[in-house]
């Protein structure tokens, strides 16, 4: 049937292309299933099962090919790139401030963290030091975003494993944080807030009070509720506690960062190790996976780290809000350069985004556009260890593993 359609047919509009086309059936040079898998060598019980890209619990458009023996997964092949938007190519064609809206779209669940990393990288290239007031505002926004992002991560993780109610409770609180963002800069998801050398809008009058109100409810209600409803649930513990165990060596070799690394028991956090934006002034703890229900580094531990991190972020927020009220208000656009034209050179800057270390490698040739921007996305590296962790698992545990790594496909595919 396909071979009957030839390029000489007039088509819907009588349009003939200038270049000849190949035969319709022979166009695609994509490898066939038999080239990717040894189909002849498959056991009678083995099957190749396709999962995604529209599977609800692959957190976006991730496609997995599973070689299964009954319910056991013997091998996994990952296919990413369904959301590729040529971020790095776009960056070369816009000026430095023009990249910021694109960075928001990398990790659309935690946009503040992405744009903060880029702004800090370019500031390092330019040699700009932000005023303390701007730093405090940035920290407040980054930590609010961390809570909001972990709310989605933990909530959807519960939903993946069959618990629907905690998701609603957490989204309720995320909604309050998004309201605060909307009040500040007008946007609810993609903010364009962290500019090079400053932020786009100062926090409005009464922001600290509204933020404290939100935190009070979050700390008194949502967080204990979450721990009681979801984390302490026997079914949840059984589904996650001994699944997807990642040793610290494996985590470092595959560059797992953020909550995924801390879940393996290593207390490494860039906000502590290499503080930026004045994080050294705040008193907070770095939670690690303790293995309270099984081996250290399991899905439970990674998720538990996120849960504790939410309350640690709330701790930072209380201190930052106190600082915000004590500090004298300065113009948040004071250090924003009129024309961003960094000297020749390159810089690699990493910051602690909610999903791990987000690195920007920015190369400047002295022009107004960046010569090259490379993003080291934490989700990309977290996904690259997937084939190791998932070996020998049940199919149902694959869902638990994807959710515990907390990937956002917008950042993987860029």
């Amino acid at each position: 049937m396909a071979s009957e359609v030839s390029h000489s047919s007039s088509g819907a509009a009588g349009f003939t292309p200038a270049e000849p086309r190949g035969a319709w059936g022979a166009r695609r040079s994509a490898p066939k299933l038999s080239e990717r898998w040894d189909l002849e060598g498959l056991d009678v019980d083995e099957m190749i099962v396709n999962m995604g890209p529209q599977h609800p619990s692959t957190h976006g458009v991730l496609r997995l090919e599973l070689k299964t023996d009954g319910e056991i997964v013997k091998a996994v092949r990952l296919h990413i790139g369904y959301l590729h938007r040529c971020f790095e190519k776009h960056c070369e064609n816009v000026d430095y401030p023009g990249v910021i809206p694109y960075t928001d779209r990398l990790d659309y669940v935690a946009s503040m963290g992405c744009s903060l990393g880029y702004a800090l990288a370019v500031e390092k290239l330019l040699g700009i030091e932000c005023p303390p007031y701007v730093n405090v505002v940035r920290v407040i926004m980054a930590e609010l975003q961390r809570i909001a992002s972990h709310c989605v991560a933990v909530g959807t993780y519960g939903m993946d494993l069959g618990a629907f109610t905690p998701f609603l409770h957490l989204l309720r609180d995320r909604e309050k944080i998004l309201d605060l963002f909307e009040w500040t800069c007008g946007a609810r998801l993609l903010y364009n807030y962290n500019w090079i050398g400053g932020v786009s809008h100062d926090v409005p009058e009464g922001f600290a009070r509204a933020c404290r109100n939100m935190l009070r409810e979050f700390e008194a209600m949502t967080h204990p509720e979450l721990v009681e409803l979801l984390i302490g649930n026997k079914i949840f513990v059984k589904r996650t506690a001994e699944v997807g165990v990642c040793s610290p060596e494996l985590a470092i070799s595959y560059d797992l960062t953020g909550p995924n690394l801390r879940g393996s028991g290593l207390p490494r956090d860039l906000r502590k190790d290499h503080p930026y934006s004045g994080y050294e002034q705040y008193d907070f703890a770095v939670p690690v996976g303790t293995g309270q229900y099984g081996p250290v580094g399991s899905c439970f531990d990674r998720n538990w780290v996120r849960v504790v991190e939410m309350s640690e972020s709330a701790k930072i927020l209380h201190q930052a809000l106190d600082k915000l009220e004590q500090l004298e208000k300065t113009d948040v656009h004071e250090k924003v350069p009129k024309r961003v034209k960094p000297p020749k050179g390159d810089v690699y800057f990493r910051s602690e985004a909610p999903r791990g270390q987000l690195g920007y490698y920015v190369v400047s040739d002295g022009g107004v556009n960046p010569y090259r921007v490379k993003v080291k996305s934490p989700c990309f590296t977290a996904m690259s260890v997937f084939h190791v962790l998932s070996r020998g698992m049940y199919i149902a545990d694959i869902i638990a593993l994807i959710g515990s790594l907390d990937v956002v496909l917008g950042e993987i595919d860029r």
Partner: protein
Amino acid sequence: MFEEKAVDPWAVVKPEAIAEVATFCKGEPALGFDNLMCLSVVDYPKETPPRLEVVYHLYSYSHDHTFVLKVHLPREDPRVPSVEHTWGVANWHEREAFDLFGVVFEGHSDLRRILLPDDWQGHPLRKDWVDPDFYNGMRVKPTPQMAERYAAGEVIGVGPFEFTPPNLPIEER
């Protein structure tokens, strides 16, 4: 050549030596670079000689220090040994570099495209990349003639696809 501002200490390594240097950097206790933070490629077509630069950002969790390795490759047929066996994460980073820049990593276990479709032609992050007019025989860029005909009100299809709106009654489809 760019007067590169040394933010991190860096060194240029010969392409054929990179796998050994990587193993040494990881294995030597005083260095202890157990983590590859980032692997990126930068294209410099206007330098003499034109080159692709593969940049390895290393980090040591035990000593908390960083180092940068750079490898200069020719733009035609760039080949460099893979460091996948030293740092597991290099597997995907190298696939991405192959996909977007066409750098071939020798000894890589599974060097396929990762972000772009398998049937994509060319390596788009190179500086001399020109957007293709066709993808798999389908025109993806409108020609000036097409734009004129479109302005005149003609409906322009995409060749063999025949699009019928789904809400029409069956006899009109």
